[in-house]
């Protein structure tokens, strides 16, 4: 079976300007929504109490809301979680009241109304922990960005490093934009997914850059644009297939993983789709604008052979 029967190199770079404009608009929209709507942060970041309770019959949300409301909490969120019988209750952090008291008060009030309610889980996070998580999250992001840039700069060239990281940060912002636009809950798991996707979609850029480097070495007559077009064309089947396979796994999580993994899988899905787009259209285009050329990659001393390549010693 072969899905990709491409006769000629596809002139991706001819449309680079248009595609970059598209990227820029999506990016700007994402930033706009991030600022205008903000992220719907989970309890882990904001601090507060989360309770999941389950009833034997479909729950009456209005009644639950009323019961919790009488306890004097401000801004209580009550919603279904997974099925109609499970209810998620979110209480904001309160000064001076311990978590233990909060959740117990709510549960006993609910029990008084309907004795067969059972507590499935509670989660309480103090406000100081939330602040730290935001800080740690940003630190992790900085670490990933700097680490990947350094690696690419050493392994390839700074122009590649810059374009790869711009392309992939653009993915990250777009994922966040989606979460802001739909007001999906941004939890720690989603953060993990975002960072994992950042590392993963840089892969894609690496594969294409690898090919560009190889092409520079092999096809001496081609100009930079042709080289890039050829590199993308010859790796496109692999790009689609690997991302497809990863997406199969992610879909499997989306379908079978339940509510807990839902947004995690969602973040990965968006990340994978835009990862393909940005590696193919954005990263290489930025590298082109930055003006990569043969001399950047082919150093006078030929040391590009991988040291672990068992044939590297056999050059005649």
């Amino acid at each position: 079976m072969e899905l990709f029967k491409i006769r000629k190199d596809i002139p991706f770079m001819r449309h680079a300007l248009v595609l970059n404009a598209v990227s820029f608009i999506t990016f700007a929209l994402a930033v706009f929504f991030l600022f205008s709507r903000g992220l719907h942060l989970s309890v882990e970041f904001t601090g507060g109490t989360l309770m999941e309770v389950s009833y034997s019959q479909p729950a009456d949300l209005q009644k639950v809301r009323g019961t919790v409301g009488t306890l004097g909490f401000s801004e209580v969120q009550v919603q279904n979680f997974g099925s109609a019988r499970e209810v998620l209750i979110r209480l904001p952090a309160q000064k001076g009241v311990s978590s233990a008291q909060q959740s117990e008060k709510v549960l006993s009030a609910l029990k008084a109304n309907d004795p067969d309610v059972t507590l499935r889980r509670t989660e309480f996070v103090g406000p100081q922990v939330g602040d730290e998580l935001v800080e740690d999250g940003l630190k992790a992001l900085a670490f990933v960005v700097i680490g990947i840039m350094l690696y690419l700069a050493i392994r390839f060239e700074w122009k590649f490093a810059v374009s790869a990281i711009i392309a992939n940060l653009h993915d990250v912002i777009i994922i966040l934009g989606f979460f802001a636009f739909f007001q999906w809950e941004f939890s720690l798991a989603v953060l993990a997914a975002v960072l994992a996707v950042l590392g993963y979609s840089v892969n894609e850029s690496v594969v294409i850059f690898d090919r560009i480097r190889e092409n520079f070495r092999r096809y001496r007559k081609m100009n930079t644009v042709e080289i890039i077009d050829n590199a993308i064309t010859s790796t496109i089947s692999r790009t689609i297939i690997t991302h497809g396979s990863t997406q199969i796994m992610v879909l499997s999580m989306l379908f079978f993983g339940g509510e807990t993994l839902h947004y995690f899988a969602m973040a990965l899905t968006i990340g994978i789709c835009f990862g393909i787009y940005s590696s193919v259209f954005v990263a290489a285009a930025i590298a082109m604008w930055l003006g990569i050329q043969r001399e950047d990659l082919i150093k006078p001393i030929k040391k590009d052979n991988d040291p672990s390549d068992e044939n590297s010693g056999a050059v005649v």
Partner: protein
Amino acid sequence: MNRYPVWKYVILVVALLLGVVYTLPNFFGEAPAVQVSSAKATIKVDTSTLQKVEDALKTAGTTPQSVVLEGTSIRARFDNTEQQLKAKDAIQKALIPDATDPQFVVALNLVSRSPAWLSALHASPMYLGLDLRGGVHFMLQVDMQAALTQRLESLTGDLRSTMREKDIRHGGISRNGQNIEIRVRDAQQQEAAKRLITDQFADLQTREVSNGTELSLVVSIKPESARKVQEQALKQNITTLHNRINELGVAEPVIQQQGLDRIVVQLPGVQDTAKAKDILGRTATLEVRMVDESTEARAAEQAGGLVPFGTERYMERDGRPLIVKKQVVLTGDNLTDAQPGFDSQTQEPVVNLTLDAKGARIFKDVTRESVGKRMAIILFEKGKGEVVTAPVIRAEIGGGRVQISGRMTTSEATDTALLLRAGSLAAPMEIIEERTIGPSLGAENIAKGFNSVIWGFVVIVAFMAIYYAMFGLFSGVALGVNLLLLVAILSMLQATLTLPGMAAMALALGMAIDSNVLINERVREELRNGASPQAAIHAGYDRAWATIFDSNITTLIAGVALLAFGSGPVRGFAVVHCIGILTSMFSAVLFSRGLVNLWYGGQKKLKSVSIGTVWRPEAGTAVKAD
């Protein structure tokens, strides 16, 4: 060219065998068990305890599958929960004759059903996180400021008495925030006080302050001593938590320090969260102070007006007020044990306290000076103090053994002892994070995680086999080996598997296939360009390797960042993610190559390989421009 030397095959086979052995225990499931462990540091679980347990089980008529002594605990495994409960009662009766002073913790637990030969190889199943097995997770913040303040309070008292002993006069000593201020009249006194502090109080540093005509000495705790105070406070709180949790009878509690001032407590399988919280949340500290028995104090006690200078009003447990001096004689630090008991002569219920050496010395001095007076033992819970008991000192008490007696019932004595024991927290704590997961949710999470991994895996392998034919099948097998090795390594490390960890496992498989796709596409391309099958395989693997290496490194950088900065669920994800990347490099490159070499490598005149359609564009079109 596509042959592996024998040693490479040996490595592959050994890795595969190890993978199988260490993954196996995960398939046997768990059996109900009763676990016996020591409740006190002085008591050891050994073969004699094992004998007792076996005897108890025999007399109770239960038939355990096995009873083994493992490290510091005994585990008896049963066929069903009915037997388990019966056995627990029997063991409890045999090992703990006095329920008020338990020497062992007898708890219900689940243990792996895996056969003995696997356990002998130290192959045990992955440790399931709380979100998969249910239980309670707490993060407690230790109030270090309070620990320091407490230390300063007691140092202030020490300073006062030492200066009195050495006859150094001063104009008053008081604690002011994190400093102690000593007011002095002249430079000579200042110098004398300073010398005394440098000589006798190694933990303190001094600073001279002159404010116009007034001279004073500002004393503070040295930073390194402050750090030591904090470390000790944390350590003691952890010990205290251990003791409290022993009362709960949890089989495998986790109590760990996190960072400088936090403690994480995980109680797997605990369902009575209210009780757990209650026991942990008893953020109590204990102080022994003298009761002020002056007439002003008496008057204030009765009338409820202003209390004399240097004293405070606390309530006794029956609601009567008591005026107590501010100076702390002893803190919970110095109390090593408190047990209910009976007086050997009068047979009335008493509480027996044991003090450490320093406490005993102080106690001896104080009691010598104050025979006939009352002292109060105050328990501070969440910032509020309550007098537990305020006995009269009948005689000088030396040796650190203290007996509190008088007008107590047995249960009152037990309660008091428990409160006093619980009071030995060095600093107050607050729950800053809490997670409770019900058992049914845990089981559902396992099923969800498992289904995600399996379905994704099946679909990917099916696709690979269709698209790349034989090579796709090799890739599928390599992916299976990847999963096997990943689970084996996690089991070997006894890493905690959580739901995010299972998600990472699924994601690792999805990403791992990337390497095989790269290789297969490369081999196809070589064939398309007219290479012979053997050469195409060789070149495909070789050329793909550099790319695979690069791309895995970038993914690994993200994984390491998550590991370094993540906490809780993110860390569970990161561990699996990182290990998954490493195993995927091994299995996708070395293992699949091994299979290919084994299958095709021996054939000298290989005409074609089964790698699906190798489509060639018509001659003259420009895929290849060289």
